[in-house]
């Protein structure tokens, strides 16, 4: 069990750091996907440990949600890129005090 959970945590941390530090919106998205997959791994591992299928079903749900989120997110990024000619997250900072 332990290796799977450790791997899942490492992947999750890498994803977190990526979301916080990368400037390109697409790369941030990829890191979010990485985090989601890390949690999928943890779910499946625990499902194997318990001996039932609940974790794997949940993993399916997560994948569906991730797919939907990618669709919407990429659409937004595409629109922003078309209007502002930039995919950097730092440039979309108009909603400030």
């Amino acid at each position: 069990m332990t290796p799977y959970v450790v791997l899942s945590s490492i992947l999750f941390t890498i994803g977190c750091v990526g979301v916080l530090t990368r400037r390109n919106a697409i790369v941030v998205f990829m890191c979010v996907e990485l985090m989601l997959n890390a949690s999928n791994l943890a779910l499946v591992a625990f499902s194997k440990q318990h001996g039932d299928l609940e974790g794997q079903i949940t993993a399916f749900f997560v994948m569906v949600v991730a797919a939907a989120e990618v669709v919407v997110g990429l659409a937004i990024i595409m629109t922003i890129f078309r209007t502002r000619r930039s995919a950097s997250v730092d440039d979309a900072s108009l909603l400030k005090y």
Partner: protein
Amino acid sequence: MFVLAEGAAPLVHPSSADGVFSLLWLVIALPLLGAVILLVGGPLAKGRLDRHGHLIGVALPVLSFVVSLVLFIALLGRSSDDRQVGQHLYTWFEAGGLKVGADLLYDPLSALFLLLITGVGSLIHIYSVGYMEHDPRRRRFFGYLNLFVAAMLTLVLAANYLGVFLGWEGVGLASYLLIGFWQYKHSAAAAAKKAFILNRVGDIGLSLGVGLFFVTFGTTDFTTISANADRVSEGTMTALGLLLLLAACGKSAQVPLQSWLLDAMEGPTPVSALIHAATMVTAGVYLIVRSNFVFDYAPHARTAVVVVATVTLLWGAIIGCAKDDIKKVLAGSTMSQIGYMMLAAGIGPAGYPFAIFHLLNHGFFKADMFLGAGSVMHAMDDDVDMRHYGLLRKAMPITFVTFSMGYLAIIGFPGFSGFWSKDKIIEAALTQNWFVGVLAMIGAGITGFYMSRLMFMTFFSKKRWADGVHPHESPAVMTIPLIVLGALSVLGGLMLAGDWIVDFLDPVVGTTPEESPPIPALAISVIVVLIVAVGVAVAWYFFQRQDVPREAPHDVSFATRAARAELYGNEINDVLAVQPGGQLVHGLTLFDRHGVDAVVEGTALGAVGTGSVVRLAQTGYVRSYALSLLAGAVLVVVALLAVNLA
């Protein structure tokens, strides 16, 4: 100091109103109808009622008097232990455990009051036809007068304290409307407000009294209260008595709530005659006599009544000695005479019938004198200053003769009505407490002085008329009521013939105990007559033998200055009530503005301030938001771990 009545107070146990007594409600309904027609129908009729509406206003109280007379005769026809009639009109309201009915009670006490109110009232209405002939708002005046009569009748006919309260407030309202009738005069409007406010202070007593009655007895019906009065603690009864006394002080202008009465003379003279002499101001005496079942069990409250009454009878008399306004002298005299009535009422069963006897006589002679004063004012171009009168007996003989009848009655000239009633009160006072009796005698002497001063300054002495003033006698519509009232001032004493009034009121107030005064009654009468004669002689010396100056002299004794300033009553009220009230309002306003408003506005300012600090977190950068998300998630995980591992 005062002896509790022997045995229980008489119970109120009315029989039902059948036969002619079923007309009882008409007595109130007729003047009320007049008020509605004149006040509501007047504007609706767009001026068509203004010319002759007052005739309706006169006819209805006269009709009410006729009904009262019929009822009185019917009551006399019944045996003396069967003279209480109750009429239940409808259930006024029911609220939880409280059930209040619109009930009327007709017994000897209310019978006498009914005759006084409707009889003297009708005479004054007839007089007002002449007095208010040239007033454009005459219809409204008669509407208000009818409203007053209806309210006063409600007061004396009610069979429970809530009904009394209704009438009480009604007469207060009518008094306000009538004192301030000439609204355009600032002094009249101010006097009306003053009367109403001081009455309101007294009404606190009646309201709290009604509440205490409900709490103690579960009802305000006279029947139930009088039946259970002996089972209540003396403390509660004393509290009730003091509250009723407070109410009576307000309505009857007794010290400490007396300062409105002299100002109330701003109203038209018929108003002064009806409301502030014969009827409304006597409502306090009625209340105390009617509540005899309360006072019979509260000797300390009785003592308070006697103290208040004695102070007032001297207070009013002293004020009357130095006023130059003829109406204000009569007002001071009213205050003093009501003090006598309250004194008798405070003595207990020994004094109740004489309080009512004096009340009725006072109604006659004071109304007579007020209407006479109105007649004089009418002749002197509405001048009220007696220093501008003089030798009017030649110019206005009928007014002079009728006024003299009232004058002789009030000073207690032997044979006139006032002589009988005042002597009886002084006798009862001496029997109870010699000091109070002596003060009452001194009061009689002062009464002789100031009333004679009035007579000499107005009808005798020398002419001090202003240029262009030609006094003449008043028209018949004004002199006929004067003649009737003058005759009643003479004949009123007949009510005491054979102790008739004492026996008549016996079922209401209890048997007058046979206690003899410390000195024989004849000796008391002689002494009082002598004291009064001294007062008259002093007045003769100063105001008939010497010339009366046309302008009021300025270098006068402190006593005169104090009496002119109404014994500083207004200044006392100012210091005790008006100034503190003003300070309280000022303080409350400050608290409202800087306290309450500051809290409300401060909350808003606080919200704004917090917002302006917190908004700095909105940097617009997605990454910083993501960092906050992460921090929050870490916190949640740590919390979960802490809970699960603890």
